[in-house]
């Protein structure tokens, strides 16, 4: 058992160049996948953020009394997909309007002599309804209520549709690049282990002749592959950690990564090492 571990370690030290190549390959692949993961994380964070901002506005006729508004509010709250409902009175609306146009001269409402802005409900959606179809269904439910005119329900439909299109594009690219990177990484690691097997051919032949079991011949290679994966993963972690520290100065709030990504990277490195060794050993030994 000790012999197996020793062989794995000394294999790593002896096949310096090709060993280094394998480690670098794994590190580079892990870094690429790490960057890809960080981008994905940020992307989905951004998407959640944007989707969270989707809301419908229901303008209420000035003729509705308090009782009526209460009834409507209960009815809307009962609709599938509605998360919260906030009532905005005519007075609040004026304040918001003034806030929005504060650079304009204030004489509008004064000149008018009455408040032209309607009261409204602001309706936010449950998570699963924050899509264009989900928002549509809520929109339809609200519109079909008695006393509510379709024109009085407003939401940023175009924004949602556009956003969904961009998300789809981003996810497609993300996924594509990610899978290409993963695939090529596996290919390269396996190729590297193949190189190591070729360079160890004589030792392996001799081992077979003196009666080494399959386990004894293969285990050092697995150990070597695993160690290379581990070192590669660690290198990637250190590199990415430094990179994020550096870029955090530039980018401030944008990047949100937690320590789990580092664990993931190291695991990924080890996995690449093991899978690469495994496929190379199966094919070339």
């Amino acid at each position, binding site marked *: 058992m000790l012999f197996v571990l020793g062989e794995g370690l000394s294999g790593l030290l002896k096949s310096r160049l090709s060993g280094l190549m394998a480690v670098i390959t794994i590190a580079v692949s892990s870094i690429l996948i790490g960057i890809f993961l960080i981008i994905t994380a940020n992307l989905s964070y951004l998407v959640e953020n944007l989707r969270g901002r989707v809301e419908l506005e229901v303008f209420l006729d000035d003729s509705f009394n308090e009782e009526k508004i209460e009834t409507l509010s209960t009815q809307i709250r009962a609709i599938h997909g509605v998360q919260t409902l906030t009532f905005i009175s005519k007075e609040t609306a004026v304040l918001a309007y003034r806030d929005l146009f504060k650079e304009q001269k204030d004489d509008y409402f004064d000149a008018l002599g009455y408040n032209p802005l309607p009261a409204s409900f602001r309706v936010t959606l449950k998570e699963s309804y924050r899509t264009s179809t989900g928002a549509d269904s809520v929109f339809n439910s609200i519109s079909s209520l008695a006393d509510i005119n379709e024109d009085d329900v407003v939401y940023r439909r175009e924004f949602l549709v556009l956003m969904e299109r961009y998300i789809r594009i981003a996810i497609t690219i993300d996924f594509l690049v990610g899978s290409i990177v993963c695939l090529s990484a596996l290919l390269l690691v396996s190729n590297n282990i193949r190189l190591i097997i070729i360079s160890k051919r004589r030792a392996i032949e*001799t081992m077979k002749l*003196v009666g080494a079991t399959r386990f004894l011949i293969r285990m050092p290679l697995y150990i070597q592959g695993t160690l290379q994966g581990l070192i590669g993963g660690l290198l990637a972690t250190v590199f990415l950690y430094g990179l994020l520290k550096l870029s955090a100065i530039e980018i401030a709030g944008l990047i949100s990564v937690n320590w789990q990504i580092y664990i993931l990277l190291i695991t990924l490195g080890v996995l690449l090492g093991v899978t690469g060794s495994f496929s190379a050993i199966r094919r070339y030994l």
Partner: protein
Amino acid sequence: MVKICKASLKYASGDGLDRISLEVRSGEFVYLVGPTGAGKSSVLKMIYMDALPSEGYVTVGGYDSRDISDNEIPFVRRKIGIVFQDFKLLEDRDVFENVAFALRVTGARRKDIKRKTLRALGEVSLPHKSRKMPHELSGGEQQRVAIARAIVNDPFILLADEPTGNLDPKTTIQIMNILDRLSTRGTAILMATHNYELVNSSVKRVVSIKNGTTLN
């Protein structure tokens, strides 16, 4: 101890062995002769189970070629010592490690490894060169290291495939003396060779092969 019974072997090229029979008893010294391509190396391969016969059978120790599993083959080889013309030493380890290698792969204990390795090197009169690398040795010395590696596991038979093919006559005599001594101590020896001078000058049993069949 080793018995080959009407064993045939077919290579893709069409050559091979044709119903060969051969028995080597414990402590016996047998020469295997025949022209190139006759099948000498193939016979040895069958004994160390690198090639299994398509017909007939081979028994080595307790194992039979007809019902051996892949997992058992390493254990057959631990009872056999093998020496080749080109030594097959590992260039990146010293003499001691080359010999110890055969013990390490069997999972022997540290203390035993040291004792047995030094004893085997003693048999071939090389303990003083145990820290040399293979490329620092002469051909004869390298072959002696290979013999030490082959006998370090106390095999009951030593297979030698033209062990003196690369050596000059003087060195050849040294090696033959070592093999003779091993044989008198009870290790059976089966040696393939082209060296008729050697074969003719000894009184040992000679098995000759031609076109894949034993003549004698």
